[in-house]
């Protein structure tokens, strides 16, 4: 009946609806390799988290993710990440503003240094920050007489997470600030607006989505951050343990189920955050390029 040929045309049709024809070669090898490599390195190993979680009972998972030590770590991780995100937004906005609007000697160097936290290995950042903020460190010695302890307290966690988060905010705000239409400010000014009014009513609304994006990126990164935090945190149980550290602790005790349950909770939170960031960025782009 020629079933074979109809099947192959049907397959052909289905492939056509999947991919638009093109004269360029190499789609199938490139796509196939991408799909296989992505599955092997990322998707299959990542799915292990959910399969492993599914093998334990809900009661067990629930007791693990709501045990006092773990809840204390959520409080620290979320609180410190929020605070660090806030500081990053304030400081990052200032730095971005100065880098975009003003001229000063060494500006290119400062601009390049913004990316240092991306480039510096987290463990190096961790021990360097710790040495600065201990009681006899370069900065710590001036804070100690004021009764401010940074190293081995939640404040230290915030400092480390700010170091990590700052570039996210600066790099989100910079291009938007640079692209912001100066004509809008000129129009506002010619209509009699004061400098402060221009800032709060024209400039700030323009860059608010970018600030929010930077905050969310910094926050998401801070939640999972490990290397730069564990040294300065001191890891006192119930006090300065971050959530990723508890995953490591459970693993070291061969409590795979416990580690996986906490990891699943953290992972789901991160993905929800990233989804939000995607929506935000799409909105920012729409804002910048009105169709």
């Amino acid at each position, binding site marked *: 009946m020629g079933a074979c040929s109809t099947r192959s045309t049907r397959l052909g049709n289905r492939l056509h609806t999947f991919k638009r024809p093109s004269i360029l070669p190499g789609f199938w090898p490139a796509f196939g390799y991408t799909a296989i490599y992505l599955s092997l390195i990322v998707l299959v*190993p990542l799915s292990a988290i959910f399969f492993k979680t599914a093998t334990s009972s809900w009661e067990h998972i629930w007791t693990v993710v709501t045990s006092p030590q773990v809840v204390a770590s959520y409080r620290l991780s979320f609180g410190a990440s929020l605070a660090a995100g806030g500081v990053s937004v304030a400081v990052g906005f200032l730095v971005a503003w100065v*880098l975009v609007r003003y001229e000063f000697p060494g500006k290119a160097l400062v601009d390049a240094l913004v990316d240092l936290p991306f480039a510096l290995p987290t463990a190096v950042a961790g021990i360097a920050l710790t040495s600065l903020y201990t009681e006899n460190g370069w900065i710590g010695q001036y804070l100690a007489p004021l009764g401010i302890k940074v190293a081995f307290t939640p404040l230290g966690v915030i400092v480390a997470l700010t170091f990590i988060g700052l570039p996210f905010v600066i790099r989100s705000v910079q291009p938007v600030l640079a692209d912001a239409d100066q004509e809008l400010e000129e129009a506002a000014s010619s209509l009699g607006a004061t400098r402060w009014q221009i800032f709060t009513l024209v400039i700030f609304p323009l860059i608010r989505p970018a600030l929010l994006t930077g905050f969310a990126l910094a926050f998401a990164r801070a939640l999972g*951050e490990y290397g730069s935090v564990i040294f300065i945190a001191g890891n006192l149980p119930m006090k300065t343990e971050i959530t990723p550290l508890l995953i490591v602790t459970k693993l070291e005790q061969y409590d795979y189920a416990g580690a996986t349950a906490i990891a699943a909770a953290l992972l789901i939170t991160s993905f929800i955050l990233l989804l939000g960031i995607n929506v935000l960025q799409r909105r920012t782009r729409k804002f910048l390029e009105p169709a």
Partner: protein
Amino acid sequence: MSTAALPLSAPTVRVVKRDPLPVQLGLTALALLAMGLFIVLPLVAVFVQAFAKGLEGYRSAVQSPETRSAIYLSLLTVGVAVPLNTVFGMAAAWAVTKFQFRGKNILVTLIDIPFGVSPVISGLIYVLVFGAQGWFGEWFSDHDIQIIFAVPGIILATTFVTFPFVARELISLMESQGTDEEEAALVLGASGWQMFWKITLPNIKWGLLYGVVLCTARALGEFGAVSVVSGHIRGETNTLPLHVEILYNEYNYSGAFAVASLLSVIAVISLALKKFLEHKTGLESQ
């Protein structure tokens, strides 16, 4: 709102004055102070502490056999993970940017996943798959192949963490370049590989290098993921960042900072390269 702003007659006339000089100076000083405190000072601290025990102490820390084996393992890891992710990045970018197919956006989102995963979880997933209690753990231990607490695990975790770097750079670059030049080459009779070597590769070379630099810097510096899968066996499964941690936890601070200074030099070099390549590609830094 109905009174539209009149178009300025001459482009040189600027109605908006720049911020007054005191404001400019004040804000610039504040910003520089913040950058100095938060970002530059930690870097300076690394180098000062590295030489706390003089040049001799520095040299002995950097030249110890354990440091050497850590350097070797770090280079080996980079040597495998970066080429793997580079080939993947080119394949993914080719498929995503030169063709229209269903589910493209989903594919691009999936490629970005490792950026959103905590380093610790990036290590954990490989323990779950290959560890003693893992999916394939029994099979591998029956065949005397060790992955977790051994070099393959370190390489796998590093590959995961640095997975999106090259792909992401190339996708945004090649998206903007379109397909016209490749199509012209094919119409003029070039073979697929000729088109790739003579058109595509020259067009993307700086962007490709940019992605490779970012990928290498992260691969060398990765700590959390590698820490989970390494088992911390001295002289065997210690990369440079893990070696820094061990020295530090043994209160050998100057040694830890000496090794850290090696990583910091590489970080600074990668920053310089990044700036240079951004200039070359005209890429906006994200």
